[in-house]
Every structure is written in structure tokens, then in C-alpha cells.
């Protein structure tokens, strides 16, 4: 018996849409063998998801599929493309199963977890309901959920994202399939949670000798787990080989470009600084001051100063604290990175700096003036010196306004140097800005939906810079972008920063990006500042275990280095457990 569990040959998928046929996959060949982990990487839209969906015959009805996708079933190879739906049902879950990206929505909200897992068992095995439920509990235990009996009776909303993803994996494992297809199983999760899920997948695959086809765009994840890598581009596989080889010695220029765009990850430190615990506030006493002027006090103007800021949200009449006693300063020309897990309050803090939220306690000083005390015109004048870039480049531009007008909006609101601009002046300035972010002529008359994600983010940047702000608040400006696009945008940001010298609050959960870009970093956890200081110092020698864990959880695209990091992280968590 051959140990091939999946063989894709000359797969092509085309979608019928309003605007005609859209080719998504244009001839893919791929083999996955028992016990192997094959990673499918590539940029957004390259056809990774379509390929993975075709393995289980789950493509929408608008897809036209040619070629063969064969799954090994008891020695025989069954071609999914030509198998009718009623027989496919028998293959799904038993021969091959699937894990999807969004753990928050992948589970039926009105069905207990136990039932959802048991259903997978009952779909393929003649067992009693009770037996199936027992199996469900077993499975929950095996994916590392504590108290599996209790969990089985719970509903998805009672679990965290990482826990839900574990349940989804349990469902995928229910009938011990030969192959698990996982489409970006960790992308929606925090790095620390991601690391846990990857560990789980690695163990399960090893234990059960199951094959794993892992779709991802994260080279670090690949290095962490994959045996083989297939690189996709525009519907084709451009390079395929052993992970070490592809990652360390890529042959195809596209692969090289991809890898180059990955920001360098800070080294993982297993050593937690001398003080184990939290250090709140400004850099610790024993550390040198941050920034370009390591020697002597920093004389640059403070553009943003948060003093003991606490922020509350009103949820159903109750106050929920999102940020607690936060102190931050950003000086002119400085880039401060704000990192932390999802929900730690990064964006909330950013909103306070923009005057969108009023602190419950403490004060926000913009250019030395309290934002809270400024009213009306004075407040707006203050805000004229702040630019903002949001995460979702699509959502932050008014879909009904041509981008030229969007970029010109700050000019219309504030004028320039205290006077209104005439229309031609404004047009000239818009052109200048669009040139600066390298957008082609004529772009100003087009609408946001006519641009790509990266282009839109550059438009957002142009708008943020229209008034030559002294402070730029950027909330995850690149996290929705592909690595290569991200690299472009970051490079642009760096250039503009160097040229214009604004202070920048750079919010991100990507430690690599923060590491590359920022001068100083502040680490948030559950709304509290746990650590801050010069980026290099903090990353090299974190004082707080949380920071260290965060750092160790970031996968690096070098397989050997990644193994080392993993070990370091495991030591850390083990230490924490002790």
C-alpha cells in the first residue's frame, strides 16, 4: 500500500461570476503522504483556500473544476472531482477532514460542543448516541481542553478563540482521518495561542500518523511545523520541496521575495530580567534611556503624553475598564511601538490619543496641551496635528467619496497654516501627497473599491499626512496586508517618518514589525503597562515573563532557529507552571 493519502493532479478551478470566468487555480499538482506535514504558502488570492477546499469537494457550485483530486480510501484512490455529492459525504470527515481559519464562527452557536463532535462520529460510525458522546469527551481531552466532561455540555460562546479552535480540531480528528486539511488555522489567534495550537497539531499528527495539509501565509508557522512546503502564486505551485530547503535556500525568485519581506523576528530570550514580575512605567532604573540619544536626557519635544490614563467602556450600563493607569510619552521624531495580545487595550489607548475617548482618569496631553480641556475650535486645531491610520484599509475610506476628496478632507476641515485653501491649491497638495505615497496620476478621481489593499492603505497614509502632523497614530496599519505588501507599506512609512520627523504611536501585535520599525516599545497586558523601554533592550532582555513569552511565541521562518525558540518557549511555560 502506497502511503500517498492525497494526490492532486493538474487541478484547475474557475469561478463563474457576473464579470465572467475567474480562474483561481490553474494547474496544481501536489502529493501528500501519510504522516507528513505539507504547508501551502503564498500571497492572498493565490489559490491556497480554493485548492484546500477542492480536497473535500467543498467548493461552491459556481466553481468549475478540472483535473483530479484523489483521496486514499482503504487502499483505493477516490477522485473527489468526479464523485457525486452523496458519496462525498461518506469521505468527508472519515478519510479527510478540515479545520478552518475562523474559530469564532466555525461552530454552530446553538448546539453543544459535545453534540457537534458526536455528530461527526455518528456520521460515519454505527454507534449509540451515548457512545458517540463519550468519544466526544475523549476527543476534547485529547485536544487539551481541561474538564472535557463539563465542556461537552457547553456552547461555543463559552470558550475562548483558542479553545474553540481546539474543538474544531477535535471534530476533524473524530473519525481518525488519514488527512487533515487546515486552512490558516492560527491566523486569527494571538501568537501565544497560535504556538499552543501548533504544538497540538504537531503532536496529534505525530501520534496518529495523520497527514496534514496546512495552508498558511506565515513563514514562521511553516518553519515551525512543516516537513514540505509548496509555494503558490497566481493559481500555480511555483516551488515545492522540503521545508528546510525552501526556507533556507529558496530557488524561485518569488519565494525569495516572500521570505525577504518577512520582518526579522527578535531573538527569543529565555532569560527574564532580574526582576520577575511587572515593571510599570518608564524604563527601569538600570536601563539606558531610549531612542537616538542614548547618552544624556532626551531633549526632543513631547508630542504625546499619557498620564495615568484609565479608560472605560459602558457596556449595558456598566463600566468596563479597558485601560488602567497608562503612562506613555512619544517625542517628536520617535516611533513608539505598543504591543500586547488581542483585547489588551492597544486600540483603546490609541483612540484616547485621538480624542475619540475621554479618559475616566488621567490626562492626555497633545503637544503639551490637555486634550480633555480643549473645546470646540481649539480642540480641533489640536487635532489638526494628529494623523491616523487604521487597520482595515478598506473601511477607513468613505466608499462614496473619491479618494482625492478623502485625502483633501483634512485640508478642507482645517485649512493650512490658519487659512483656507483654494480648490487648485488643494488639488496640488493632494497630488503631492499621492505622489509621496507613490500612487499613479488620476488616482484621485477613483473610488476606494478600485484600489488594492496596499494601495488603499497608502491612501490612508496620505490622508493622515495631509497636514504634516506632529503625531501619527497607526493602529495595526499592516496587519490586514500580505507580507510583501506589508513590507512596501512599512518601507514607505519609514521613509516618510524620516523625512517628516513626526512622532508615531505604532500599535501592532506583530513583534517582528515592531522590532524592525520602532525606537521604543511599550507592552500592554489586560489594560496595564507591563514593561516599556528601548525596543532593542526590551526584546533582548525582557523584564517581564509575559513579554518573554510573547517573544518566544513568535515563529521565525528559519526551521532550526524555530526549533530553538520552541524549546525556549516550552521552558518558559514550564517555568511558569512551576
Amino acid at each position, binding site marked *: 500500500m502506497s502511503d500517498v493519502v492525497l494526490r492532486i493532479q493538474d487541478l484547475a478551478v474557475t469561478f463563474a461570476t457576473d464579470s465572467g470566468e475567474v480562474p483561481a487555480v490553474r494547474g496544481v499538482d501536489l502529493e501528500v503522504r501519510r504522516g507528513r506535514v505539507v504547508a501551502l504558502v503564498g500571497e492572498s488570492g493565490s489559490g491556497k483556500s480554493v485548492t484546500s477546499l477542492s480536497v473535500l469537494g467543498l467548493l461552491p457550485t459556481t466553481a468549475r473544476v478540472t483535473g483530479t483530486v484523489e483521496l486514499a480510501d482503504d487502499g483505493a484512490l477516490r477522485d473527489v472531482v468526479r464523485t457525486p455529492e452523496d458519496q462525498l*459525504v461518506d*469521505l*468527508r470527515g*472519515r478519510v479527510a477532514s478540515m479545520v478552518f481559519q475562523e474559530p469564532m464562527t466555525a461552530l454552530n452557536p*446553538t448546539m453543544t460542543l459535545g453534540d457537534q463532535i458526536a455528530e461527526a462520529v455518528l456520521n460515519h460510525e454505527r454507534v449509540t448516541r451515548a457512545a458517540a458522546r463519550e468519544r466526544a469527551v475523549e476527543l476534547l481531552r485529547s485536544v487539551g481542553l481541561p474538564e472535557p466532561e463539563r465542556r461537552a455540555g457547553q456552547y461555543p460562546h463559552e470558550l475562548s478563540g483558542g479553545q474553540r479552535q481546539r474543538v*474544531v480540531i477535535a*471534530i476533524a480528528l473524530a473519525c481518525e482521518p488519514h488527512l487533515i486539511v487546515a486552512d490558516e488555522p492560527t491566523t486569527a489567534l494571538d501568537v501565544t495561542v497560535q504556538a499552543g495550537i501548533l504544538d497540538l497539531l504537531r503532536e496529534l499528527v505525530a501520534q496518529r500518523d495523520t497527514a496534514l495539509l496546512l495552508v498558511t501565509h506565515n513563514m514562521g508557522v511553516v518553519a515551525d511545523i512543516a516537513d514540505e512546503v509548496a509555494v503558490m502564486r497566481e493559481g500555480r505551485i511555483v516551488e515545492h520541496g522540503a521545508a528546510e530547503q525552501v526556507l533556507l535556500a529558496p530557488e524561485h525568485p518569488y519565494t525569495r521575495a516572500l521570505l525577504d519581506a518577512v520582518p526579522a523576528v527578535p531573538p527569543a530570550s529565555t532569560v527574564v530580567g532580574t526582576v520577575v514580575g511587572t515593571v510599570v512605567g518608564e524604563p527601569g532604573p538600570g536601563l539606558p534611556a531610549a531612542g537616538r540619544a542614548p547618552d544624556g536626557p532626551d531633549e526632543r519635544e513631547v508630542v504625546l503624553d499619557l498620564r495615568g490614563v484609565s479608560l472605560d467602556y459602558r*457596556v*449595558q450600563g*456598566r463600566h468596563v475598564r479597558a485601560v488602567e493607569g497608562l503612562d506613555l510619552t512619544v517625542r517628536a521624531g520617535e516611533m513608539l511601538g505598543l504591543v500586547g495580545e488581542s483585547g489588551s487595550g492597544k486600540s483603546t489607548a490609541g483612540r484616547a490619543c485621538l480624542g475619540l475617548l475621554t479618559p475616566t482618569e488621567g490626562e492626555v496631553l497633545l503637544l503639551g496641551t490637555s486634550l480633555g480641556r480643549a473645546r470646540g475650535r481649539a480642540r480641533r486645531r489640536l487635532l489638526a496635528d494628529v494623523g491616523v491610520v487604521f487597520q482595515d484599509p478598506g473601511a477607513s475610506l468613505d466608499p462614496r467619496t473619491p479618494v482625492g476628496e478623502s485625502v483633501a478632507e483634512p485640508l478642507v476641515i482645517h485649512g493650512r497654516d490658519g487659512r483656507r485653501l483654494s480648490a487648485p491649491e488643494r488639488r496640488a497638495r493632494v497630488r503631492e501627497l499621492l505622489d509621496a505615497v507613490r500612487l499613479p496620476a488620476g488616482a484621485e478621481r477613483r473610488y476606494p473599491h478600485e484600489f488594492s489593499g496596499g494601495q488603499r492603505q497608502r491612501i490612508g497614509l496620505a490622508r493622515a499626512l495631509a497636514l504634516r502632523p506632529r503625531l501619527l497614530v497607526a493602529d495595526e496599519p499592516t496587519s490586514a496586508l500580505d507580507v510583501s505588501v506589508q513590507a512596501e507599506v512599512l518601507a514607505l512609512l519609514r521613509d516618510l517618518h524620516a523625512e517628516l520627523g513626526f512622532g508615531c504611536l505604532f500599535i501592532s501585535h506583530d513583534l517582528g514589525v515592531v522590532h524592525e520599525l520602532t525606537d521604543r516599545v511599550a507592552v500592554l497586558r489586560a489594560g496595564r503597562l507591563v514593561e516599556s523601554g528601548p525596543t532593542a533592550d526590551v526584546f533582548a532582555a525582557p523584564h517581564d515573563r509575559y513579554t518573554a513569552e510573547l517573544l518566544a511565541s513568535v515563529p521565525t521562518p528559519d526551521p532550526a532557529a524555530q526549533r530553538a525558540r520552541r524549546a525556549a518557549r516550552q521552558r518558559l511555560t514550564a517555568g511558569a507552571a512551576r
Partner: protein
Amino acid sequence: MTTAIPAQSATEVAVVPPTRVARGGFGRFLIRRVLQALAVILVVSVIVFALLHALPGGPARGVLGQQATAEQIAAFEAANGLDQPVVLQYLSFLGRSLTGDLGESYLLNQSVSDAIALRLPKTLLLTGLSLVVAVAIAVPAGVYQAVRRNRAVDYWLSTLAIVAYSTPTFFLGMLLILLLSQTAGLFPAAAPQGSGVAEVLAQPAGLVLPVLTGAVPIVATFSRYMRSATLDNLGEDYVRTARAKGTVYRRVVLRHVLRNSLTPVVAMLGYYLPVMFGGALVVEQLFNYPGMGLLFWSAAQSSDFPVLLGCVLVISVATVVGSLLADLVQALLDPRTRGSLR
């Protein structure tokens, strides 16, 4: 995407989905929702009070009737403090309404609350039956359409639903009477008479046409809600998960999608209540069914204001309470809120 299939209809737009229970916990949700309902009832009472004052001759004539003499009116105004400031008048009106004193019908020799109490059950019976029939048709139809979306069946059913929606109830009722009663002689054209629900139920044949007429517009509306709710759910990720574990499509639809699509539609029913009462008015008039709609209609024919305003008040309160209940039921059906009850 461009298909000839209308994704939603006028009626769908007409109703904005009910508030979702936020994570604040069920208790809070309950309190907030009840307070909200009370506020709405308060506003309704203000509107009714305003209408009472807008009557030619003011509330005195409205309550005493057109035949009242000037002396009677003066006496009434003095007795009921109509010479007092409007706010005080409103408060006493509110107090009276709260104790169930909606005034006297001058046509029926009955207190308005008695008149309504006698007829409301029958209207509830008629609307209830129409609703049951309608839901029994609309839910499967909507699900079926969603599963067969963009096929010919879907197309025709959707078109049919719009046509049904666009046909005035009275026109539809007339056509039904003409076809099923007069021409085919299958069912009587008049609804069962009688004072009690039991008597009405004893003549089921007479209920067929009124129930059918009342049900058609509900089917038209709710099959479309159901279709779009099902479509939304079919697009959810959990459906993909269920399919990926090898669940038969039929079961995916019936076990997973149906339930999740049904809950919002159930809540929508609450918001649809006023429309159903409006429909009942026409149906009762057409089939001479002795319910609240007919009471209202004859009161309008004879300017029996106490009855008119009493009906408006009662129906509005019923509607508010109905949508409150629908919201609560929906919240209870949803494990996401039920969880916070524990």
C-alpha cells in the same frame, strides 16, 4: 452577483431586526427590555391621549358621544378635571387606563373594556390560526427557496410572494370568496358568529376563508424573511464545518441551519404583530367575523370614540407586550444568552 431574485421585500425592510442580547447578561437585558416596553407604552398612551384631545369637541364629546348636551359636557369636564392643566389630565387619564377604565361605548351600552374583553379572544384566535397556518407554509417554503436559491422554483416562489404581498387583503378575500365560496361552494363566505371562542371553533368550515385570507400576506412576508435568514446561515462558517465532517446536506439544513434561522424570524413575529392586527381588521370586516377589528370598524362607522381609542390602546399594548415576549423567547432560545442566566 446579479440575479433576478429579489433578496428582500418591502416588508423585510419594514422590520428592523430586534435588539440582540449583548453580553451584559440576561437579567440586565430583561430589565432593560421591560423598561423599554414600558416607555413605549407610555408614549402610546400619550399619543392616544393626544388623539382624544384632537377630537372635535375634545375628550368630553369623545367619551359622552355626539348626542351629549352642553350641560352634560360641562358636568363631565368638571367631574373629570378637564379644566385642569393638561399634564394633570394626562395623569388621570393614565390612571384610569391603568385600572382598565377605558370609558363607555355610547353605542353598545357596554364599558369599552368589556366590549374589548369579549372580542379580543376571538381576534386572537383568528390571528393565531392565520399565523400558525402561515408559519407552517412560510418556513418550509423559505428554507426550500434558500436551498434552491437562484433556481427557477426560487424565482417563481419569490415572485409569487411579492404578488401576494402586493394584493390588498380585501381584494384577495373577495377573489377567494368569489372562487371558493360562490363558484365552487366549498366554504361559507361568512365567518362563524357567536360570542365565545368555543362557538367559533365549533364551525371550522367558516373559519377556512378568513384564516386563509389572513394567512396569505403573512406567508408572503415570512417566507421571504425565512429565505434570507436561511441564506445568511447557509453562508456561515459552521455550515462548512458541518459539511466537512461528512454531515448529509439535508441534515445540515434541518439540524443546523433551520434552528439558527428560525430564532430571528420568531422575534420578527413580535414586530409583525401590528401588521397582523391591521390585517385582522380587514379580514373581520370582509367576513363579518365578530372580533376586535369588526368592533373597531363599526365604531369608526359610528364615531364611537371611546371604543376606537380603547382598541388602539389595547392593541398597541398587546403589540408591545407581544414583541417583548418574542424578544425574550428569542433570547431564551439562544444559548448565548441562556448561558448568562446560569
